[in-house]
């Protein structure tokens, strides 16, 4: 009897232990490119979640932005890679084609589709299948230094390209090492997005229906605008370099008051605040100036989302989706906002969840820096999400940099950009 009872007890303990082990197996890792202070906020949110879900352990791993895609490609996509990763929407087509990212489970997908704008959901979907929970939306606007504007006698932000060039001329002072408009090089998105913003504000597009449209009149005028900025000396390419952390001379030049204007995304508010201190009050934002072929101020937008590793074990994936659903849901943050929205707002990034827009409405409307962005958002065009997007971006980056350094004329750059883009997109679509 005693033996039987002992055997039964051992069996019960074994079952309990094994079931505990199964539950505790949910060890979720989160790969991001955020800075340490933002990572600390994410870790705090994860700690709140795990307090209520002790069966799940969440660890956060951060890499520089320049290494994020490589990390995803090398270790992030394997069975031992990160369970969750924050990704840029342009990377999604290639990652889903290689089956590295898991579709969002039906229940969470339905909830997500109901709570995010359709355009953002579209950027996180391939063939109608949702692959990630969107979190941030970034849009480009003109950033300018009010102090330099006042010194140059410029009353307000330029609204057209003519006004933009006139302002750039007044702001340029070579004796002070000061440039009117700051271009960026050595960073694909940093080069492409300002160019694309000017292009769409001139009525053009980068890609339409999967085909590049860089041979348009609007594109021709945009390439010519770049050439004029360089040839007139309003932009100095030597002040334009970026490094793997998306900082470097281009940022240094703006924060130290050597650059009058730059076109940049809302997320760099935190970098400006860190670099400028009290002088951040000199920075103002405005919509992208309208080109001769444009009808209204437009910009480009892109979004980020969190995806789950398709090769992670099923229980890890389930725990990851549950955590992401909570992190992006209205219960996790203050005053009906999501914890993710709160983290994003701390960086000056616009959260894409509709209810976050409402929860942070006061802050968004009262923040003078973000105002220039929120005014632009309604007329923003999404950056094209296509197969081979990274190769396309790097190719156009090189062509735009060649204009910056006088290696290509505007006409040659336009022809090269269109020919290369056509070949790259066709080759990648055919694979």
């Amino acid at each position, binding site marked *: 009897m005693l033996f039987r009872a002992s055997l039964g007890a051992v069996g019960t303990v074994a079952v309990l232990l094994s079931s505990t082990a199964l539950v505790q197996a949910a060890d979720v890792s989160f790969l991001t490119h955020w800075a340490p202070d933002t990572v600390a906020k994410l870790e705090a949110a994860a700690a709140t979640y795990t307090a209520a879900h002790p069966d799940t352990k969440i660890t956060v791993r951060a890499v520089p932005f*320049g*290494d994020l*895609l*490589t990390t995803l*490609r*090398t270790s992030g*996509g394997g069975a031992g890679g990160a369970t969750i990763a924050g990704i840029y929407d342009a990377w999604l087509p*290639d*990652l889903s*084609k*290689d*089956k*590295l990212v898991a579709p969002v489970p039906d229940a969470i997908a339905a909830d997500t589709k109901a709570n995010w704008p359709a355009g953002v959901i579209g950027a996180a979907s391939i063939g109608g299948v949702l692959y990630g929970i969107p979190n941030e939306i970034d849009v480009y606007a003109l950033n300018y230094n009010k102090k330099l504007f006042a010194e140059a006698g410029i009353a307000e932000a330029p609204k057209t390209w003519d006004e933009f060039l006139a302002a750039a001329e007044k702001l340029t002072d070579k004796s002070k*090492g000061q440039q009117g408009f700051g271009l960026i*090089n*050595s*960073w694909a998105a940093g080069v492409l997005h300002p160019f694309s913003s000017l292009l769409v504000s001139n009525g053009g597009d980068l890609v339409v229906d999967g085909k590049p449209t860089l041979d348009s009149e609007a594109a021709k005028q945009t390439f010519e605008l770049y050439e004029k900025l360089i040839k007139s000396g309003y932009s100095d*390419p*030597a*002040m*334009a*370099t*970026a*490094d*793997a952390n998306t900082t*470097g*001379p281009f940022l*240094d*030049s703006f924060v*130290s008051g*050597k650059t009058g204007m730059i076109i940049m995304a809302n997320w760099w508010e935190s970098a400006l605040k860190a670099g400028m201190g009290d002088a951040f009050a000199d920075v103002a934002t405005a919509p992208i100036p309208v080109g001769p072929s444009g009808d209204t101020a437009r910009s480009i937008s892109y979004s980020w989302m969190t995806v789950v590793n398709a090769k992670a074990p099923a229980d890890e994936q389930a725990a990851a989706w549950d955590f992401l659903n909570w992190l992006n849901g209205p219960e996790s943050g203050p005053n009906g906002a999501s914890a993710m929205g709160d983290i994003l707002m701390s960086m000056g990034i616009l959260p894409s969840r509709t209810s976050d827009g409402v929860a942070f409405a006061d802050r968004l409307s009262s923040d003078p820096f973000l105002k220039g962005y929120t005014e632009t958002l309604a007329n923003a065009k999404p950056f094209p999400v296509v197969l*081979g997007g*990274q*190769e396309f971006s*790097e*190719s156009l980056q*090189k062509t735009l*940099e*060649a204009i*910056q*350094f006088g*290696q290509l004329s505007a006409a040659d750059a336009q022809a090269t950009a269109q020919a*290369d883009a056509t*070949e*790259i997109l066709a080759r990648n679509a055919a*694979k």
Partner: protein
Amino acid sequence: MGGYWGTQARDEHTSMHSTQHRSAITMLAPATGLIGVFILLPMLLTIWLSFQSWSTQTGFETATFVGIQNFIDIFASNSVGRDFKAALVNTAIYTVLSVAIILPLSVLLGLLVHQKLAPGGVFLRTVLFSTYMVPMIAVALVFSKLYSPTEGPLNQILGWIGIPPQTWLSSPQTALVSIVLLNVWQQVGYFTVLAVAGLTQIPDSLYEAARIDGANPVQRFFAITLPLLGNTLLFSAVICIINAVQVFEPVALITQGGPVNATNVLTFHIRRVGIERAQGGLGSAMAVTLMLALIVAIAALFAFARSREGKTQ
């Protein structure tokens, strides 16, 4: 009988030979096995992949044979070919400049720290070698700030002596040379130590004999030092070439291959193509081409050294 003993002796000999053979195989197996698994297998796999169309993110079973198409593509006139050829040229320039600056400088510094006329040789050697021990991440961070066109100390120092600011990493004309200078700064100490090791092997009696014959220091350098440093310099050149061809960190950390791909060297480009774009077949074809170029360069160097040896004998 003789036939019997002869056959037995042969059998014993064969048996002993076979045992020795088995022992040799047993003893060599771990080393050759490790070399096979960790060196030869990846190399063969890379060569095999260079003839396939394959996404790095999928299993090898998804690779499809495309013959020499990847090699045609990397030398084509489209963006794939242009970028690869530019990266190949950048790597060659970087390598030639690195070797051309580091080797003479290491010999010069080696002579300086090896001489016994003034004290401080060991201290100088330690200082020189210390640059080699600094992690590249720290070197890259420091140099990215030193080279800053507006805020950088280098341009400020040049300004004090009336030299206009230089573009350093911010221009395609100077970016690659700036990365070479960074490499020289970090590596020259190591090669100086090699040069000093070579110098210590030259007998003092040769210098004494030359002095008695009336040879001046320059004549002694070209007649004794340089020829007897030949093997050291050959070894240094091989290591320097291999190190230079494998340059990656400063490009990845500071320039990201820019501006206008001016610092896009092959290792960085292979990562971009093979990993970021997941074009594993193309990336492997590039890696194989780089390996072949390296083999040719090293073989040419040895052939040159042998021909020099032949002439001096």
